[in-house]
């Protein structure tokens, strides 16, 4: 028996088009991994605004794509889209299923990763915003055993979302460390969607076939733990030794001891065999007993940030940009604004690392100054100082484009015209008021 698992999502906000290709290709499970560390912080801000939020709100999009296959009994869906509010996500899933006219569907919700009720077992700061443990595959396996068609979880470890269906289908035992490690390898390779199929490939990325529709991946998994990583044939991108190994080591720290709630996986034991035709076989994974503890992530407030971007053109663009930043910092210091941290970047002149290696003068430089303060008012005071640079700073200051939040902005047209002087003069009036 071969179990086919599709990677349906790699983060909150990922593409939806490639999911259709994965579903059309036929998968027993579609697994949507929606949570990064940063995502939980974003969801926290949502929940602060509205108690009914805190899950990834693109969940219904993915469910709408998958529901026809789920209702046919061809595919089950597993996702950690519940974020820090899996109950609300479960409700959203039920609503999406009802809207699609579904009946007889079993939707499971896994809760319990929130450790705030466990004050005795874990020391949490008083100002905790969220504190979640990374759960393993077991509760998902329970849900599948109870006939769930869709499983919504909160903070379950990324790879465990994929380990669960393999344990469920193959009946692997919870101390079969090598097989569990094999499941973690499959999960890790699939959990970042397109990133194993040519996305973010650091080699000849420009040679991706059909780069406009890079595939989401599929794993064909066997009971012995081996698997072939592949992709839907009609989709673009590529699955090669190179794309697979780049994903294999992504964010794992010690590759000999990749810590997961279900097992400690040794990725250096894995044989990675490129069979050609977008098929890479991974086998031979070794594992060691799972850690005694769950890893958790706790979030507390950490102050406020403000930032400014100021662009200058040639000549001497970098010198002007640096001068403008010095101006802002001097102004803030002179006003006694309590800034706890400054961070300067110069786009076009080595904002991320290093400098131009040819020593040539850049045609433009964008300064980015960011600052951290204890309170939002102080952060805003620094921002208010930026405007004066428009007319009183270095020359050739210019823009970096409209809103950075991606929202549409209304455009306005202005045209010159001429009008009879007498007609306008007749309505001109001077009012003087004494107070």
């Amino acid at each position, binding site marked *: 028996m071969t179990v086919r698992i599709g990677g349906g999502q790699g983060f909150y906000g990922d593409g939806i088009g490639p999911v259709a290709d994965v579903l059309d290709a036929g998968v027993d499970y579609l697994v949507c991994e929606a949570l*990064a*560390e*940063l995502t939980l*912080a974003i969801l926290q801000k949502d929940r602060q605004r509205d108690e009914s939020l805190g899950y990834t709100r693109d969940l219904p999009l993915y469910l709408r794509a998958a529901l026809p296959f789920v209702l046919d009994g061809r595919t089950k869906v597993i996702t950690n889209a519940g974020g820090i509010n899996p109950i609300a996500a479960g409700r959203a899933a039920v609503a999406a299923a009802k809207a699609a006219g579904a009946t007889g569907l079993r939707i499971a919700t896994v809760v319990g990763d929130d450790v705030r009720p466990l004050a005795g077992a874990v020391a949490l700061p008083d100002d905790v915003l969220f504190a979640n443990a990374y759960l393993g595959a077991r509760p998902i396996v329970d849900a599948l055993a109870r006939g769930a068609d869709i499983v919504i979880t909160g903070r379950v470890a990324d790879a465990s979302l994929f380990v669960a269906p393999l344990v469920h289908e193959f009946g692997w035992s919870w101390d079969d460390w090598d097989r569990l490690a094999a499941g973690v390898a499959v999960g890790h390779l699939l959990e970042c969607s397109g990133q194993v199929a040519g996305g*973010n*490939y*650091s*080699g*000849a*990325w*420009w040679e991706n076939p059909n*780069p*406009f529709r890079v595939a989401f991946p599929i794993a064909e998994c066997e009971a012995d733990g081996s698997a072939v990583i592949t992709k839907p044939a009609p989709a673009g991108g590529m699955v090669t030794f*190179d794309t697979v*190994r*780049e*994903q*294999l*080591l*992504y*964010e*794992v*720290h*010690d*590759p*000999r001891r990749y810590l997961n709630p279900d097992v400690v996986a040794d*990725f*250096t*034991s*894995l*044989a*990675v065999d490129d069979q050609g035709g977008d098929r890479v076989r991974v086998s031979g994974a070794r594992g060691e007993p799972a850690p005694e503890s769950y890893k958790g992530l706790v*979030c507390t407030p*950490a*102050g406020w*940030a403000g*930032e400014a971007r100021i662009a200058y053109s040639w000549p001497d663009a970098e010198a002007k940009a640096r001068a403008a930043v010095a101006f802002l910092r001097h102004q803030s210091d002179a006003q006694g604004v309590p800034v706890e*941290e*400054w*961070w300067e*970047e110069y786009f076009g002149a080595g*904002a*991320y*690392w*290093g400098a131009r*290696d040819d020593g040539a003068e850049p045609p433009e430089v964008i300064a*980015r100054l*960011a*600052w*951290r303060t204890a309170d939002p008012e102080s952060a805003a005071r620094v921002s208010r100082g930026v405007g004066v640079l428009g007319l009183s700073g270095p020359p050739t200051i210019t823009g970096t484009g409209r809103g950075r939040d991606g929202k549409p902005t209304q455009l306005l047209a202005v045209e010159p015209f001429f009008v009879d002087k007498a007609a306008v003069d007749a309505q001109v009036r001077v009012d003087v008021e004494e107070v």
Partner: protein
Amino acid sequence: MARIVLRDLCGARSGDKGDISDLSLFADDQAAYEAIRAEVTAERVKAHFGPLVHGEVERYEAPNVLALKFVMHGALGGGAPRSLRSDNLGKTHGAALLRMEIDVPDEVAAGARRRVRPPADPWRET
């Protein structure tokens, strides 16, 4: 021996966990792997990143995929949700490491396969 930019010899990918930047170098063959294993030490990587990395750098080896892994502590300005940096996820750190220059045997330099560059405007339909 020949001096070579890692860009010509290796692939790289990087990501984050908290305030840790986690990056990998991928060699194309055994000889290139041995060359980077000898040259790209944790100490050199820490020096390469200078003030961007406040903590220690650990190195791990994954010979099955001809890769070196570097785990850089204190490297993201406090971690993604509180960092003031544009690259709060360390996505560019792998590429930044590819700018390091190392000395390698002549035959390794001659076999460096990643000198090919993209066309100027690759995905424009004509």
